[in-house]
């Protein structure tokens, strides 16, 4: 009897191999369907089996993604997807860890984790499906909502300037920064593949419409345009590109050369000291 595990990566996969039997409860017309299709296409193109991949999320409409895939999934707590993903990647570096969520989960509740995940540069791919609203809780403004968006929860708008996620990621140290669009799943799949294959923290900001609370976002498909530059590898050039960005440029804004964080530093530490400290906490 052959006890050797199968060489999983020699199998070939199709998009539908990554789709679970659980039906998404997203609203018909939701941009997250396009992101899901793009991600599953990218994973099929990557050639890894579902058993080699983990999708970690927080809370929100888009954070339901782990339930909809045959890959391993971890539907975590609000804003803490990157913390869970970081821990997982450190103890299981053999797994491909993808972290996904929305703009509220990632930039508000999880804002601090976002900054430090970029700074640490763990080898993760972080996909934020940004619809500029808290859809699951019925339409409150999020950190990326325009200041003049008038709604029942913020009559006249919040008057607060929105976050610029790509600038934040670059400033905090992310090693790969891109923007995609839900309405072009094939192009987004290519961006996701690039992000997954790039070492370190890869941040992919996806314009993903909320058909229910932000129906005006349908106009995005008229506004998006493809980046017409060679991928910036220098920080200063990425800053210039982001400075000129109108928020609808689709493409890669930065692909840095910083090596991903590894256990090298931790391994060089005197682990017996850690054991000693842990023993001091024993009751």
């Amino acid at each position, binding site marked *: 009897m052959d006890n050797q595990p199968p060489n999983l990566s020699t199998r070939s996969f199709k998009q539908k191999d990554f789709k679970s039997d659980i*039906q998404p409860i997203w609203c*018909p*017309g939701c941009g997250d369907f396009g992101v899901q299709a793009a991600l599953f296409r990218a994973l099929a193109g990557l050639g890894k089996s579902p058993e080699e991949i983990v999708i970690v999320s927080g809370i929100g409409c888009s954070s339901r993604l782990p339930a909809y895939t045959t890959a391993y999934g971890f539907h975590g707590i609000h804003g803490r997807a990157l913390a869970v993903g970081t821990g997982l990647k450190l103890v299981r570096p053999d797994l491909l860890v993808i972290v996904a969520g929305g703009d509220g989960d990632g930039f508000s509740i999880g804002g601090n984790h976002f900054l430090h995940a970029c700074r640490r540069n763990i080898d993760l791919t972080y996909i934020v499906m940004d619809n500029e609203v808290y859809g699951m809780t019925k339409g409150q403004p999020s950190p990326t909502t325009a200041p003049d968006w008038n709604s029942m929860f913020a009559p006249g708008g919040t008057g607060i300037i929105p976050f610029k996620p790509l600038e934040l990621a670059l400033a905090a140290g992310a090693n790969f920064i891109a923007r995609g669009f839900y*309405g072009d799943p094939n192009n987004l799949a290519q961006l996701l593949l690039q992000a997954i294959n790039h070492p370190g923290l890869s941040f992919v900001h996806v314009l993903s419409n909320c*058909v*229910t609370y932000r129906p005006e976002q*349908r106009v995005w498909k008229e506004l998006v345009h493809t980046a017409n530059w060679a991928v910036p590898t220098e920080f200063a050039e990425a800053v210039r590109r982001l400075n000129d960005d109108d928020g609808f440029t689709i493409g890669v804004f930065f692909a840095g050369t910083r090596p991903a964080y590894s256990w090298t530093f931790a391994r060089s530490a005197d682990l017996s000291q850690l054991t000693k400290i842990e023993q001091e906490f024993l009751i």
Partner: protein
Amino acid sequence: MTESLPKVLLVNGVTMLLAYARAIEIEAAERYLELAEQMDVHNSPELANLFRKMAAAEQMHLSKVDNLVGTLKLPEILPWQYKWDTPEALETTAYDAIHYQMTPRCALQLALANEERAVAFFNEVVAQSSDSEARRIASELAAEEYLHVEIVRSWLDRFHESDFKEDLDNPVSQ
């Protein structure tokens, strides 16, 4: 519809034509099935049934394409390597064309546009390919697609309601 046609000159020979034809039918069938499931979740059985019928029609068409493929070895092409002028394969309904308030009439109009794009595509191959066998097959596929166009048109004649129905429990107003 010609403004949304793919670069048909890339689809010159038989194997490339059949690879494109398979991609068109597979993606269309899978998407219709996915849309049917979305409508199941949102308790729109009429639309779910309609999308399932469309999926079944595309599946039948795929079987016919597969018969044409026979033992031919087709090129392996990743989804984003096809040269569509639409964001996805040209018979695939875009996710954002869907809405929970849509009516069967609206769904059929989308299906009609999908089928018409397919007819135009295969007719373009007939007009432009230098390969006589590819032209013959494309002509056959265009005729198949045109049958679908006629069927969808006949279904459309049965529906005279507006494209979107009123939501008596509008989520935005609560």
